[in-house]
């Protein structure tokens, strides 16, 4: 760990000292939420995965060092924008990475559209792959419509027909609710009600009671992090019978409230560390330096960083047009041994995995939380390219 920091420091100084490098350095600007709701899932832990990918690549590409800058956008579009602008204008950043907030990503998207700068964003707004797509823009997570389908459809098939929403009062929450509602009504289900909660809500029992009073069979949690965990905890306390449908459940959530709170929960996930030998080997390396297994968000950052560096190596330079063309033409190698493809609208077509939570008796302890029960092919989840309004997706 120490040596990495040292390398980063040395290369940062080197960057300042050299006015005209022969080959351009590659600078990755890691712009993420380092405090707040999603910080444990992604944040520093995913930055660690980025550094791992760089180290394993050799720390250099085309003979030049790979620099990493990092900053906290705090979930605010204006903060994210001013950092991105400074990095692009003064630090020569080639890639803005993570950008895990739709409001921030939408703002940055306009900033970089005509520049030689890439963005690989863990932001899920469908706008980012439609009217706000870009030639150098890749979405590293499922978009809200895909997430909604992936979570809602299996529960509908299992007989859950009456849905209630507890939605975080953000753009993300409302978009998730809207997309999930479309999926539910299209499949013959019914939405019986919903509430939007503020970021400061600490008691959700009233909403759970309302869901029960309305006869909901399923409660969609269009929220994440501690809010989602509190809802699950209080649902257990009140003996709520309805099935919970969390959209963004991760290993760190089980760690935070305990596996027993999420009993009988099933859903879908992009990566789970204990899925197969390849993921376990990666998790072992990651854990040796970070102390816990990687979340799906950290695994994603590793995969995209590696794919991006391979592209730079292959095209022998930092021309964003060439890099993105290469990344689309070549399948992206995933940690679990399979591959994914990146489309022109920035969508990544990749399989997702259905899971159920382990019972406390099945679990061998911390971080042993899920059983992977199946694979949902990427083709079933992906948004329809023919319906995309992204101008770069045509032709």
């Amino acid at each position, binding site marked *: 760990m120490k040596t990495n920091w040292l390398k980063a420091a040395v290369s940062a100084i080197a960057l300042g000292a050299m006015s005209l490098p022969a080959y351009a350095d590659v600078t990755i600007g890691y712009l993420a939420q380092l405090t707040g709701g999603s910080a444990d899932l992604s944040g520093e832990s995913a930055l660690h995965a980025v550094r791992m990918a760089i180290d394993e690549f050799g720390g250099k590409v085309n003979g030049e060092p790979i620099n990493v800058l990092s900053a906290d956008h705090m979930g605010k579009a204006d903060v994210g924008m001013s950092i991105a602008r400074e990095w692009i204008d003064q630090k020569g950043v080639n890639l803005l990475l993570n950008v895990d907030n739709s409001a921030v990503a939408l703002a940055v998207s306009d900033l970089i559209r005509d520049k030689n700068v890439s963005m690989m964003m863990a932001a899920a707004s469908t706008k980012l792959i439609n009217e706000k797509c870009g030639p150098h823009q890749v979405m590293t997570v499922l978009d809200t419509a895909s997430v909604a389908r992936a979570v809602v459809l299996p529960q509908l098939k299992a007989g859950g027909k009456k849905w209630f929403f507890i939605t975080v009062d953000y753009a993300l929450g409302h978009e998730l609710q809207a997309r999930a509602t479309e999926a539910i009504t299209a499949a013959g289900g019914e939405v019986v009600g919903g509430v939007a909660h503020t970021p400061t809500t600490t008691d959700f*029992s009233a909403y759970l009671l309302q869901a029960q009073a*309305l006869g909901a069979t399923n409660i969609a949690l269009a929220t994440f992090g501690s809010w989602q965990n509190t809802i699950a905890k209080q649902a257990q306390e*009140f003996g709520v019978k309805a099935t919970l449908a969390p959209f963004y459940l991760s290993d760190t959530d089980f760690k935070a409230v305990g596996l027993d709170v999420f009993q009988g929960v099933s859903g879908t996930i992009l990566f789970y560390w204990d899925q197969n030998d390849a993921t376990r080997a990666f998790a072992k390396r990651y854990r040796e330096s970070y102390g816990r297994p990687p979340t799906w968000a950290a695994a994603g950052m590793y995969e995209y960083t590696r794919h991006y560096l391979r592209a730079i190596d292959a095209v022998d330079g930092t021309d964003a047009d060439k890099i993105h063309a290469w990344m689309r033409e070549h399948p992206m190698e995933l940690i679990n041994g399979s591959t994914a493809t990146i489309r022109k609208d920035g969508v990544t077509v990749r399989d997702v995995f259905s899971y159920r939570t382990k019972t406390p008796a099945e679990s061998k302890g911390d971080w042993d939380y899920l059983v992977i029960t199946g694979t949902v092919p990427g083709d079933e989840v992906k948004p329809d390219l023919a319906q995309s309004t992204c101008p770069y997706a045509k032709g």
Partner: protein
Amino acid sequence: MPFDLNLNLILGQMVLGLVNGVFYAILSLGLAIIFGLLGVINFAHGVFFMLGAFLAYMLGATLGIGYWGSLLIAPVLVGLIGIVVEVLLIRRLYKIDHLYGLLLTLGLALAIEGLIRIVFGQQGVPYPIPPSLRGAVDIGFMLLPLYRVWVVVAGIVLCLATWFVIERTPLGAKLRAATDNPAMVQAFGINVPVMLTLTYAAGVALAGVGGVMAAPVMTIDPAMGTNIVIVVFAVVVIGGMGSIFGSIVTGLGLGLLEGLAKATFPSASSTVIFVAMVIILVLRPRGLFGKMA
């Protein structure tokens, strides 16, 4: 579903509102004591609430101490932290404008919250409901978890006991006198600075009790105190800054009001308390129970 008037639902929401009201009351009581007797607007109050919950978790995780033991020990530890804070920092602000106390405690709150975030992460830690309080009671219109019944009963008893000590015992009388005229009370041979230190400690220890009581039902995370303290300040303002009895009644009352809003018009539930605050401030600037100057 804004106007779904189902009687059982309304009653249920009001009961849940009362549970939240108990937390508001315990927290605003501590704030009222600290402001009323020391003149300090203690913005760090929410952090002491959060520390109570984290200490309960730590006592359990490291020493195997259960809920009941933590309910006694954690508030004492929070009180001790309060003593350190009062002696090192807050004491220096009694003679100057209230605003400085507010700024100091706000800074302190941000620093402590940041520290807890570094140690425990953003998402917090788990805490189970004690086995003796699991299950639910049927109160006719809803199944109320036993633990929430305990919170209501214990919380109200705690509030009334605190009120009794301050308003009806010789100790309370000395305290009130010491803040009114410290020189005179000192002349009677009472160590005023120690008394003020202990008052601050008791005020934050109350928040600590609230934190332990909240641990099994809320998620223990670094922001839990900050989230609730904003509402609690509104409670104190509505009740009348420094009014002990006012803070208890207002805390419970606003919990009920919030519950009623959740049953009838959920979108308004997060703002109803602040609307009430605006109305009260316009009509009665010193709050419902505040003494007129």
